[in-house]
């Protein structure tokens, strides 16, 4: 046996990072989690704490002033925040989602222009792909971008946009050549301050209520041509490449909320007494907890493995990412539901956090590609 | 009979209560010789005599006010050399412990801090300590040199014990280290008229349940009706409802009064650590499951905004 066998465990540094974020999350984010859900308000305190500690967008490369964190570190940040508040975890998660197209495909000037303020905490990034009539069938989008001299004019409606209205920067996919399907789509950076940009009313959601989800209206928004990300017609490919990496961040959220639910339920069952003893003493309860822990452990292994693949750019990343997202989100739904069950009647009330965790978990099975779409992706990319 | 040095904690001649408790303990192991330093030291003599001091050694010099800790260590070292006591007792204030530690090091003795009781023993004084997390009580003695023991407030009764209390000048020559840390200004803590938190016989504390700085008036009213000190939990202090100097708990003050009343305090370990050795504990909290009830000798599950004012009224009525 050798203590030095490093495979299949995160490094010391990853563990230290986890400890630091867990402390921060518990001290600065958790106390507000219930309120931001109850009031359906933006988690400003979480944003402030994350920005103050350089944790709002750790993935941004060092050359733009970012922390240059690897994919696993990014996952750990999101996981630990989600463990106490899923709504807040959308800050680092969507910052990555929105900015990754620029990092993957943008010109050096574009990266410098937008990654620098993102790293400084001076502007958040959102991601605009879906439309009212184009969800799973993203390539069926209708938002168009028409060339006009040195500019492009964008017009259309995007739907289900996280942090819309709060973010300063929006990566928008639009059709530049209607004669083609996915190969006629290009990606652009749109700024909140561009004329013609406006937002719809916040959606009234089942969960992640603290995260504003709104439509983005682009009414003949004129932007300079250098705001295009990559070459014309490559937008969809960039979007798909982005999702290969960012599905893993959703898996991270799912992992976090599942862990948070398990941690809470574990504590509760030791305190709650029925029939003269803590309910933790009953085998039925113990079996439930065992299953929850086992599933989380498997989800974590899959997610971290995918994160490592993302960092290396492995050939099977597409499959790995989809598998992690699909599996972890299903686990999150099961575990949080079980957590409510373990807390019984109390778990069903807003006085305890598990019902919020259950409501928050649901979205991870839906966004960034429904789990049905994930299966399509996996089937097409079987290892 | 052997003599026991007792360091006098006083403000301009007014002796603080824990010193009087120390005299009670000193009398168990020998004849108390008090050491009073600084401005108006001689004024302490009559009070000290009334509580058992055989002699009162005094020294007034500006150094005691102008420089931190070391002048007092110099003086106590001189007193030890002059008296050759069986033990040195010092109140367990933050400063008291620093003085005691440096003294012990200088005289090559062992030190016991935060004793809650001191008894005479065959081989020297035996100190009782309540080990933090308070699951154990230990008795210890110093095995090398003249025992230096610091004692927590509320560890002994204050007993009237008329004694001679002869005032004598203490000869002190200050060491090189004396002027190391200058006190450039001092602002006395504003007297609230209430007893000092760590010394008070009764403490009334408010926690998260008090829900606001203005509401602390209710806690203060109860405290005043009982002649008590006011405490606050970390949650209340962090929220800005009461000063940190009143915080009771792991990162605040540790108290062990005769009576501790916790209102709107859940009783998490952070807070418990600071008050669980109180003789009698009373709790008022809306939540029947709050851990504080496990500690309480008497608990009321209810809204503190109803119970505390009602209690205050009752106390006032009964006191007439």
């Amino acid at each position, binding site marked *: 046996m050798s203590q030095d066998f490093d495979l299949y465990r995160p490094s010391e540094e990853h563990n230290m990072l986890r400890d630091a974020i867990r402390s921060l999350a518990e001290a600065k984010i958790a106390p507000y989690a219930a309120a931001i859900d109850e009031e359906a308000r933006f988690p400003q305190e979480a944003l402030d704490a994350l920005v103050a500690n350089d944790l709002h967008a750790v993935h941004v490369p060092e050359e733009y002033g970012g*922390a240059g964190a690897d994919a696993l570190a990014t996952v750990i940040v999101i996981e630990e925040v989600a463990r106490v508040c899923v709504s807040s975890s959308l800050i680092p998660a969507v910052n990555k989602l929105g900015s990754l197209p620029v990092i993957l495909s943008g010109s050096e000037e574009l990266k410098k222009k937008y990654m620098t303020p993102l790293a400084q905490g001076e502007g958040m990034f959102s991601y605009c792909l879906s439309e009212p009539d184009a969800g799973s069938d993203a390539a069926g989008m209708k938002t168009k971008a028409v060339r006009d001299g040195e500019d492009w004019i964008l017009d259309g409606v995007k739907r289900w946009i996280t942090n819309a209205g709060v973010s300063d920067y929006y990566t928008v996919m639009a059709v530049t050549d209607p004669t083609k399907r996915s190969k006629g789509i290009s990606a652009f950076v749109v700024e909140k301050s561009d004329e013609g940009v406006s937002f719809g009313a916040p959606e009234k959601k089942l969960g992640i209520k603290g995260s504003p989800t709104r439509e983005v209206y682009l009414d003949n928004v004129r932007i300079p041509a250098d705001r295009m990300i990559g070459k014309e017609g490559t937008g969809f490919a960039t979007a798909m490449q982005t999702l290969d990496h960012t599905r893993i961040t959703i898996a991270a959220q799912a992992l976090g909320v599942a862990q948070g639910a398990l941690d809470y339920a574990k504590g509760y069952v030791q305190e709650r007494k029925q029939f003269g003893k803590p309910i933790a003493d009953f085998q039925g309860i113990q079996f439930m907890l065992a299953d929850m822990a086992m599933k989380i452990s498997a989800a974590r292994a899959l997610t971290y493995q995918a994160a490592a693949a993302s960092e290396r750019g492995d050939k099977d990343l597409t499959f790995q990412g989809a598998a992690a997202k699909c599996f972890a989100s299903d686990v999150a739904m099961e575990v949080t539901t079980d957590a409510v069950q373990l807390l019984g009647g109390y778990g069903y009330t807003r006085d305890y956090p598990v019902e919020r965790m259950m409501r928050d978990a649901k979205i991870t099975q839906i966004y960034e590609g429904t789990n049905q779409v994930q299966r399509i992706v996996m089937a097409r990319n079987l290892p | 009979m052997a003599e026991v040095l007792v360091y006098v904690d006083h403000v301009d001649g007014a002796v603080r209560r824990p010193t009087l408790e120390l005299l009670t303990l000193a009398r168990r192991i020998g004849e108390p010789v008090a050491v009073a330093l600084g401005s108006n030291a001689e004024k302490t003599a009559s009070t000290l005599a009334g509580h058992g001091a055989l002699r009162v050694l005094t020294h007034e010099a500006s150094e005691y006010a102008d420089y931190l800790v070391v002048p007092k260590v110099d003086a106590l070292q001189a007193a030890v050399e002059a008296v050759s006591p069986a033990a040195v007792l010092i109140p*367990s204030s*933050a400063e008291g412990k620093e003085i005691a530690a440096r003294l012990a090091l200088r005289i090559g003795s062992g030190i016991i801090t935060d004793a809650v009781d001191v008894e005479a023993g065959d081989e020297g004084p035996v100190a009782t300590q309540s080990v933090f997390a308070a699951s*154990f*009580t*230990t008795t210890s003695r110093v095995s090398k040199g003249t025992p230096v023991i610091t004692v927590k407030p509320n560890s002994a009764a204050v007993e009237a014990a008329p004694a001679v209390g002869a005032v004598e000048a203490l000869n002190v020559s200050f060491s090189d280290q004396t002027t190391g840390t200058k006190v450039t200004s001092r*602002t006395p803590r504003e007297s609230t008229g209430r007893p000092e938190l760590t010394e008070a016989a009764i403490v009334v504390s408010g926690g998260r349940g008090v829900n606001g700085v203005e509401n602390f008036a209710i806690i203060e009213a109860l405290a005043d009706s009982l002649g008590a000190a006011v405490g606050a939990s970390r949650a209340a202090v962090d929220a800005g409802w009461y000063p940190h100097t009143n915080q009771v708990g792991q990162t605040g003050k540790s108290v062990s009064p005769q009576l501790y009343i916790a209102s709107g305090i859940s009783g998490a370990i952070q807070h418990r650590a600071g008050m669980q050795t109180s003789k009698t504990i009373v709790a008022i909290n809306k939540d029947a499951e709050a851990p504080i009830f496990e500690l*309480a000798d*008497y608990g009321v599950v209810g809204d503190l905004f109803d119970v505390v004012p009602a209690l205050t009224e009752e106390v006032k009525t009964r006191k007439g």
Partner: protein
Amino acid sequence: MKYVPDATGDRHFADDLTVDRDDVDGLLSELDEYAVEQALQISENTGDDVEITALTIGPENAKDALRKALSMGADKAVHVEDDDLHGTDAIGTSLVLAKAIEKAGYDLVVSGMASTDGTMGVVPALVAERLGVPQVTLLSEVSVEDGTVKGRRDGDTATEYLEAQLPAIVSVTDQSGEARYPSFKGIMAAKKKPVISWDLSDLDIDAKEIGLEQAHTSVESAAQRPARATGTVVKDEGEGGKQLAEFLASQKFI
């Protein structure tokens, strides 16, 4: 170059003590984090080149505390470790710290403050006594300028402003300012920072001078306190205040 060693959590085990909650597995104790934070702030506010060394005494896993200090921004770390240290009291600990501090070289030592409950509260004073330098302790505010350290000490009866010339020993309270969280960059940078290990022979300390045998106090007995039995708990239905008053009267408080 100025050196600012930072005496962090030294650990000692006595046979009959339960382990302190804050002292689990060599984690940098909350109170010592404030010391690291103040050392970092002093370093940031001073124009000169300041080097911060984190110092701890303890078994192997005390290295975790050092790593945390490094990831917060300390420049290097010193770990004093020796089996013979087991059972050392505050007096002995101060000897080891004083020798280590002298060997590391310093202008200022910043230490955390245990709660007013623990014997740890006296170690900075003892180290100052041994090194023959000023102690500026229990500060809720501290700053260094031109070779002078200044601070504010909030005592029981008064607030004092203190001043001393370097070299000096300083201790800070939890009121001195929130400690920063280590950043990702800080954690990665910590990997490359040096951690030096010393044992008693490196410090010229004889095992006879420390450890259980040399303790200047001996424990005579240890008894488990009986758990406090829960007393009476009543529900307030309008009479709560009165019932409470009855209880207090029965206990002769009123």
